[in-house]
Structure formats: C-alpha cells, structure tokens
C-alpha cells in the first residue's frame, strides 16, 4: 500500500498562517499548491527566475512543520550513490578483518555480517524516506541529467528504494518533496505530470514591500518603499541577471548599514554591488540611475 502523506493541514489558510509565522509572505497560488502537495502526497515543483525564493519555500516549510529539512543539491554528474546510499567500504573491510580474527570462516556468514544497515551511508533521498516526516528538497533538479531524472521519477512515484543486499525500504510516511528548477534544461513531461506545479513570479510592489518590512523592520517605511520601487524598475531593464528578492533585501540591508537616509545616485552607488551581480549590469544601471530615481519621484 502507498504510504500516507506525513502531514495534514486542514486548509490552504492553515498553510498561509504557517508560512507567515515564519515570516514568509506567500501568494495565494503558492499556498494552495503547497496545501495540495501536502494533502495529496505529491511532490511540489517550483520554477521561477533565480532569486524569487524557491529554495526558501522548502526551508520555511520544514521550520514551520517542525521537521528536518533534507537537502539534495543537484549538479551535473550527480550520481545515484550521492543521492541515495553507499556502502561504507572501509568499515566493511574492517568488520571482515574483525570477524576473521574471531575465527569466522564461512563466506555466507561473513557477507551477512557486513551487509547490514549500520554499514549503509544514507544519502538524502534514503534519509528522507526513512524519516518520513521530513521535507526533502531536491534543489535545482534541472542541473542533473535525464537518467537521474528518470530515477527520481521512480522514487517519487513509489516512495520506496530497493537495495539488493537488504531488500526494499519503504517510506513510513510520504515526506513532502520540493523540487526546484531554474530551467537551465527543460524537465521531462513525465516528471512534471507527477508534481503539483507552481511558477513563482517576482512579487508585486506591495508584496515585496511587505517582505522587506518583515525582514528589516528597522528600515523606515518610506525608504523601503523607494528601494522596492527602484528594484522593480531595474527588473524591467532587461539585465543579464535581474535582481531577485534576495538582492532587494541585500540592497536594503546595505543601505541600512551605510546609514543612507534617502535614495540618490551618490548614496546608492556603493550599494549597487548588493543588487547587481554582473559588471555590465552595474554599468547599465549606473547610467540609467538618474532617470530611474527621477521616475520614482
């Protein structure tokens, strides 16, 4: 039988409350997607531009639900062993020596002696399945290759893993699986179909302002509003790396640290590095800054 979802929240409103307690300001669509993922026991696939807070969602959820966050950071060339499990060969060898020195000669018994769970190095996926009540974050899944994706598909549909020497390990309860993707590569449809999907957009001005206010309550509201308005305009410039929410927060924090009281080109210049991460972008914005600030009024 399928393992049951590990979490039961009674309504999307309960999810929203949980997120807001952790000072995360969600869109209604995200709240509903999370709620459905939790209740239906389906993985949650989050896509969006870098810096909109995809990974943050998993972190906040783990904190809010009071369960461990198990993170699998994906990268090109990620192997199953790093995602699932490995045998601890060194300790197995030692154990064989030990058994032999105790006079054990029977090969079957030796094998049984070393292929035990205690010699298993559990990697994130196995760990999360075993915990059951956990949030499994599979971060930047677009960076893995297709073979790994196919494997993920299998794990995510059965929530069980077969280890030839030990047998099949089944999740006691379904962990909440959060996949994020920056779309460096198109994910396969089969994986998408398995998931509850949500595209996280850049937040609206009011929403981003709320985020900044929640994170940096000591920043004066008027300044916070101007900072957010500026960043929102900067996003429209078609930069190489448009700033995400994290960058807005960085900029706001830098201004606070620099003791800047109002936005003007001189005061802003030293803080631009917090907002922009490419030299060309810094140049573009520096040139446009006067006009941008003028437009803010």
């Amino acid at each position, binding site marked *: 039988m399928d393992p049951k979802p590990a979490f039961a929240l009674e*309504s*999307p409103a309960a999810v929203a409350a949980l997120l807001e307690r952790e000072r995360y300001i969600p869109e*209604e*669509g995200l709240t*509903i*997607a999370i*709620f*459905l993922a939790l*209740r*239906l026991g*389906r993985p949650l*696939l989050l*896509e969006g531009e870098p810096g909109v807070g995809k990974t943050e969602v998993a972190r906040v959820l783990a904190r809010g639900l009071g369960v461990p966050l198990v993170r699998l950071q994906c990268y090109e060339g990620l192997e199953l062993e790093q995602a699932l499990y490995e045998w601890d060969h060194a300790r197995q060898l030692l154990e064989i020596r030990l058994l032999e020195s105790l006079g054990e000669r029977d090969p079957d018994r030796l094998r049984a002696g070393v292929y035990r769970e205690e010699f298993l190095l559990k990697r994130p996926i196995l760990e999360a399945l075993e915990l059951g009540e956990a949030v499994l974050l599979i971060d930047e899944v677009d960076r893995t290759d297709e073979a790994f994706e196919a494997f993920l598909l299998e794990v995510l549909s059965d929530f069980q893993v077969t280890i030839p020497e030990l047998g099949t390990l089944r999740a006691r309860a379904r962990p909440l699986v959060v996949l994020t993707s920056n779309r460096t590569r198109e994910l396969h*449809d089969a994986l*998408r*179909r*398995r*998931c*509850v*999907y*949500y*595209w996280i957009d850049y937040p609206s001005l009011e929403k981003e302002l709320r985020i900044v206010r929640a994170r940096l309550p000591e920043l004066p509201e008027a300044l916070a509003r101007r900072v957010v308005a500026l960043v929102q305009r900067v996003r429209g410039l078609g930069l190489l790396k448009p700033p995400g929410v994290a960058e807005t927060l960085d900029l706001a924090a830098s201004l606070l640290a620099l003791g800047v009281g109002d936005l003007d080109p001189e005061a802003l210049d030293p803080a631009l590095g917090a907002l922009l991460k490419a030299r060309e972008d810094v140049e573009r914005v520096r040139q446009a800054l006067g006009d941008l600030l003028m437009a803010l009024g």
Partner: protein
Amino acid sequence: MTDPRILETPLLRGLLGFIGTLRAEGLRPGQAQIQAWLQGLLLVPWEGEAFYLASRALLVGRKEDYAAFDRAFRRYFGHLRPKALPRQAAQGSFPVLGSGEAEGEGVLKGAYSPLERLLRRPLEAMTPGEALLLARLLSALVFPPPRFAARRRRRVPKGERLSLPATLRRALRTGGEILEARFLSPRRQAYRYYVLLDVSGSMAPYARALFLLLQALKERGFPLEAFAFGTRLTRITPLLSLRPQEALPGLGRLAEDFAGGTRLGESLRAFLEGEGRRLGRRSLLLVLSDGLDQGDPEAVARALGALRRRVRRIYWLNPLAGLPGYAPLARGMRAALPYLDALLPAGTGEELLAFLRRLRDLP
C-alpha cells in the same frame, strides 16, 4: 434525500468537460493528473480564486501553459477570476452581486465534500464564484430539451403504422411499383418554456443563481422565453444568450427599476395579455418567485386562473419552499396555490437539480 454519490457522478461529468476544453487549447494533462485534480478539488474551498489556482497547480506543469490554461478556464467556467465579479457589480449595481460574504454554511462545514456542499448551500449565501460554478455544473447536467409525442404524425421510412397514401405516392416514382413502404409515427415536439423571474428586492439574493440556471437551459437548446418582473414585466430573453458578466449588470438595472416591490397580479396579467395568444398545449409556465406580493391577491388568482387554461403545466419555484417549517403564507403565494401543478423549492443547487429531473421526466 438523494444519495450524494448519484449527484456526484453527473457533477463529475460536468467537471471533466473542462478537460475537453483544455485539450482543445493543446494541453494534455495525464490520467494521474486528472485524478489528482479531482481529489484536490475536494480539498480546497471553492471561494475566491482557490478553485482556479488549485486547478492550475494540478493540471499544468509548465509556466508556458498558463496562458492556454487561462483561456480554457475562462471559456469553460465563464470567468478567470470569479473574485473580479463584485467590482463589476459596483458598476452594474446588481444587488445580488453584493459582497457575497454571507457565510451560511455553519453546520455543513466539513460535513460534505465541496461538491455536495455547493449543492446544499443556500443560493443566497453563495459567492458570485460559487454561483457561477453551480451554473456551470448544472448546465453540464442539463439534458437536451425533452420531447413529448404530439397528436399529429409524420411520415417516416420505418415505424409502427403503414401509411398507404404515402406509400402509393412513393410508388408513383417507380412507375407504380411498390418498392418502398412509408410509415407514420408520432411527431415529437419540445415544450415551450415561459419563465417569469421575480427580481424584486426580496428575491435579489436568488435572482442571480436562478438567472444563471435559465442561461444553462437556454444554452442547451430549450425553447425558452424569459421575463423579469417586479412592478412591471420585461422580456429578458435576449439577455440569456449574453455572457454572465454582460448579462448580469443588465438584469441588475432592471432590478433597480423594480425597487418599488412586487406586483404579482399585474405582472401575470401583463404576461397573459402579451403572450396569451401564443400559449398552448406545448407551453409550460414557470414562475420563480417567493410570492411576497404588494398587489391584490385577487388579481393573482384571476390571472393564474386564465393562464391555467392556456398552458400544459404551471410550476412555481420558490426559494423559500425548501426551508424547514415553510408554509405558503405569503399573500400572493396563497392566492396562487390552487392553480399550480406544483410548488417546488428552489433554494439550493440540489433543489434546482430535483427540478431539472422533474422537467426531464415530464410526460
């Protein structure tokens, strides 16, 4: 009380119709997705945008498909964001469209699936989004207009009674040789439906949902003439073929004109004078009203008495009639009672469904 499972099956069909619309837009959700969608719909409240957002999260797997999904959703459910309706109402000033905040569910909460809850929810407590959804589901349930056997017969290639004249006439074509027999079979005709919708103040909370039901019937091809009445009678058939967001403000303006109240007798009289000659054995008269009348009850009785002789059936749908302990005490209602074939409740989706079944089973 009907078995909720029976209710759900056709509702399911209504929902699944949306998948067809999605396919027409080039989206192909998988079976597992559709299943998850149906399960998901039972979990989220159908208020505001939740229904839309949940559907999108479960049926769409990439951002690029959001636009196509939105188009399909708008086409099938009438609105992308039912939440946007009240703003429109502010311009159209339809009292029914108010804030829709009234929460009448209390005891029902959590007791049923949202599908059943929607059906059992009092119409007056529905948010505009829910009313639309209900109408959409009802319209998926509505069968083609039922037909009854008329007295006249028509000639058909195969039937129960041989038509000698037709057979011989056919034989002339082949030089008098009878190669093909012709038969007679009863002509089947659809009823004509005449609907009088009360849009006076006391009916305002229901008029919206009832109007959407009429639209559903019309869309399904029911030959239907609709009139709104309060202090006067106005033909609203043209409004029925508009989209809800265009039609409802129009209805709202009518309702405003009628703010004076209900004059049942005069409205029935006006209907009789205007349409009386067109009525006949094929006609069904449906009155949608709570029967609260400021006019003369005697006039109601007279008009209905005359109508009674001209139509096949008179049904009175009263949103209050399903309430426990309801008795037809309102003056207009009491005066009308002797002339009705049935007084039917119409206060919830379930009651409207029961009414639809009655229409279908009409002899």
